[in-house]
């Protein structure tokens, strides 16, 4: 566990906490991209270069921008007078704390049995491409179909209805 790991974890967790607690929705989306960048750095720290750069491209480049677009389109950046947290926030917080307690307990209990540090695997992008086109070609095609369906579905759901269509 190096110093870099702790710095990246502090950045990621701070971004995630800010993303769910800030009052202005646009600030939440910006804090979310900080958390995504921290997770991408953790991927790079884990020698998963391809996944790290894919994370930067897809999450910071597409998903965060999409969220900002949705905030702008729904004009929900100004804080409502009734508060930003729902009526049952205490129960939600308790459930999240219970989930973290269970997960943390399970990890710490099995920590001595987990594998120790191993040599960094050398994985080139060429190998990933060969695997995607060879062994994983069927899941790749299914994901392509899913993305096409999601694209069409999102456009149809968000499309403006005609006046007489209802």
């Amino acid at each position, binding site marked *: 566990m190096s110093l870099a790991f702790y710095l990246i974890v502090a950045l990621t967790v701070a971004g995630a906490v800010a993303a769910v607690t800030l009052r202005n929705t646009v600030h939440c989306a910006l804090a*979310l991209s900080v958390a995504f960048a921290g997770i991408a750095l953790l991927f790079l720290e884990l020698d*998963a270069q391809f996944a790290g750069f894919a994370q930067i491209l897809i999450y910071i480049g597409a998903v965060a921008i999409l969220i900002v677009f949705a905030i702008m389109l729904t004009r929900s950046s100004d804080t409502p007078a009734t508060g930003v947290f729902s009526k049952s926030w205490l129960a939600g917080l308790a459930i999240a704390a219970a989930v973290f307690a269970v997960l943390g307990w399970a990890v710490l209990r099995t920590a001595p049995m987990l594998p120790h540090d191993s040599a960094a695997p050398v994985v080139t992008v060429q190998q990933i491409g060969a695997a995607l086109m060879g062994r994983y070609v069927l899941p790749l095609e299914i994901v392509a179909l899913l993305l096409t369906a999601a694209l069409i579905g999102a456009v149809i759901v968000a499309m403006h209805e005609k006046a007489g269509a209802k």
Partner: protein
Amino acid sequence: MTPLAGYLLVAALLFAIGLAGALTRRNAILVLIGIELMLNAANLNLIAFWRYGPHPEALTGMMFAIFSIAVAAAEAAVGLGLVISIHRHTRSTDLDSMNRMKG
């Protein structure tokens, strides 16, 4: 503490933060942000297990994470489309006011 346990704890913490956000916020877009954080925590688990697992050269965990990222992108697009569609009907993204189907 082994490095793998450290990564698993970080992923558990991120998952809990995302769950807390999804369960406590009023705004539908903030609930989606919480869900995205939970998906990212799961991806971190997959990559960590791939890195410290017995056969990293088989690329199984890496592929799982890449496909998971693709599915999460599709989920975000459809989810935000739904939020915009609901906003057009009710002029609000407040989840507490969306109780038309409440029994």
